[in-house]
């Protein structure tokens, strides 16, 4: 630890902040703070945000409160080459929101066919079973694209990002963050 002891360890909630517009002014907030402050969404509708939160929370507990909907909304609103979404690296073509919309629609279409209601209205047990089947690409009559496995991987990675990829996330796991440069600047 001697080397590390010399570094400034990042504390507090700035690391992981994104630029959100509140009352016409751009402020840096964590996605969780943006959600708590009900910062208006730029691209996703309120209904899309709820559906996204339901899937993400099933994948990674804590994703809803960590602000997954605000994170995706903000990342879909920046110029595509600046987006920090895993799907950009995995060769998705912008606009990235199309991927999320198509994925949510495919999920709800399959849920309607199987349960007669959308994903967000399933019981927790049903939601877990649905995601388990989606992970292995086994929902019959899937109306993709995107394919089931790709949605599982991308939504899970985003949710893992907001829950575990911030200073708060590291603290939750009890490991030091050890930033050389803390993510305070606009991303």
């Amino acid at each position, binding site marked *: 630890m001697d080397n590390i002891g010399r570094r400034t360890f*990042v504390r507090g909630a700035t690391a992981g902040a994104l630029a959100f517009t509140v009352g016409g002014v751009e402020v840096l907030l964590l996605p969780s703070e943006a959600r708590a402050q009900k910062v208006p969404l730029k691209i996703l509708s309120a209904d899309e945000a709820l559906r996204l939160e339901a899937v993400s929370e*099933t994948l990674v507990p804590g994703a809803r409160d960590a602000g997954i909907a605000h994170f995706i909304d903000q990342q879909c609103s920046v110029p595509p080459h600046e987006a*920090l979404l895993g799907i*950009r690296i995995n060769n998705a073509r912008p606009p990235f929101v199309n991927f999320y919309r198509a994925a949510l629609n495919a999920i709800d279409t399959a849920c309607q066919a199987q349960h007669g209601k959308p994903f967000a209205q399933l019981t927790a047990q049903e939601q877990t079973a649905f*995601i388990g089947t989606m992970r292995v690409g086994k929902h019959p009559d899937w109306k993709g694209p995107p394919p089931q496995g790709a949605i599982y991987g991308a939504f899970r990675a985003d949710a893992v990002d907001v829950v*575990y990829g911030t200073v708060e996330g590291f603290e939750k796991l009890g490991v030091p963050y*050890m930033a*050389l440069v803390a*993510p305070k600047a606009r991303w």
Partner: protein
Amino acid sequence: MATQEKVDVAIVGAGPSGAIFADVLARAGKKVVVLEFGPDWDYKQFVSSEIWGRRIKHAPPFQSTGRNPSGHGSNAGWGTGGAMIHFFANWPRMAPVDFKVKSQYGKGLDWPISYDDLLPWFDRAADDIGVSGNAQAERRWYPVGKDYPMPPLKSFKQGDIFNEAFAKHGYPLAPMPVAINSTEYKGRPACVNCGWCHVGCASGAHGTPLVSHLRDARARGAQVRPFSYVTRVLTNQSGDRVTGVEYYDAKREQHVQPAGVVVLAAYAAETPRIMFNSATDRHPKGLANKNELVGKYLMCHTAANVWALFDEDVQNYMGTQANQFMSYEHYDNKTRPSKGFGSIFLRTGAAMKPNVGLASARPDLFGAPLADFMKRAARGLTRIGIFGEQMPLLENRVELASDKDEFGLPIARITHSYDADAIGSWEYGREEAFAIAKAANPKEVWRGGGPGTAHLIGGTIMGTDASNSVTNSYGQTHELANLYIAGAGLFPTEGSVNPTNTIMAVTLRGAEHMAKNFSTIAS
């Protein structure tokens, strides 16, 4: 369309390959322009975050197909420094046997040069970027010229925990040579083991072009133009010389950059794409492609992980993304009846951050079981990584897709599949690593999925003449004396080690040769 003033050398791509050409040619007094598709990075601004780290990754659009599609998007570089600004800094070298696979085993291809031809250039690369390691420990496997400039990095329990098990299983370890400073080096600080190398090291301890060749090239007058997207190499009317390149700037305005020599250093997918898109009446199949070998013999390394979860704290949250230990034992023995063909390379001991490192170890988990796993893995998870070799096959290739980019030019389609030899050695390597990891008595041990596709190699291979290759051993194309290619695209075989040390050695050799013979090469 604006025509720029003519330069001696126009280089496409500001990764390590392009940066070396820029540095060597600028040092030789040549007027150099580097055209780079991405931004101009300042490493001091790199943010320590895996989320932010995606900001420095990007690739021009491409299609990936085949049984094992290449994950090109996460291998490609973008912006000054190329992929090296976020590479893991492992610095092994291809071994002597890798350069004569065909003559020794009757499979694959031979290089037109030997390991000995590259030996002095490995030394030069180590001096240029700063390498930490123990050359003496490696000499049991291959000749190493000079000792490395710095001693090995400090090790942590995440790697130390396997030492005994490796030895018992017949795989003696050596410290991994790494392009990271273990001490202060040429005005750059020593590493502080924070583990953020893969999102860009803000301290300068990470040996990248931003703190070596590119910085030096600029100091010697080379001009670097970020956000310059090269679409074509231009040729003269008779088709026997290149005359420059065509590119779009950040405002999407088109330019022509006339040049005496053009160096394509845009990585193994984009370089062939640019060559195809540069087709003319004289070069109907693309530049330097009369023999139809451009884009062919593409290779990836089979990538595998064996994961081990311990109850104790293995210090996985610190250290570097570079591995601490490696083994070349049995590397020379590429033949294993019924267990594939090709070398395997075992590595262990690297830092892991939660959202990418830990969560990717169990991609099957979600919900409460994932949350529980993350807690246990945060201090207890480590792994052994294995790369395996793939032989060069004609059917693995880059070609043009029917899809176009925003400027109406066809994008690259990468077709990649592993054959039975590669799959066999991937399985073999994974089983060897599994047995070793198990012998270290972790609470849980499991095999990761795969085979993954690490790195992109080949596609514009070097050889003895135009009957078997696109370029000579310096990267000069057989058909156009003033068109050069730089990077792993030149490799006829890949061994099973990370490529960048060998890329640098090959590139330094090619660039110095160009500098010495410039008057006979340039238009």
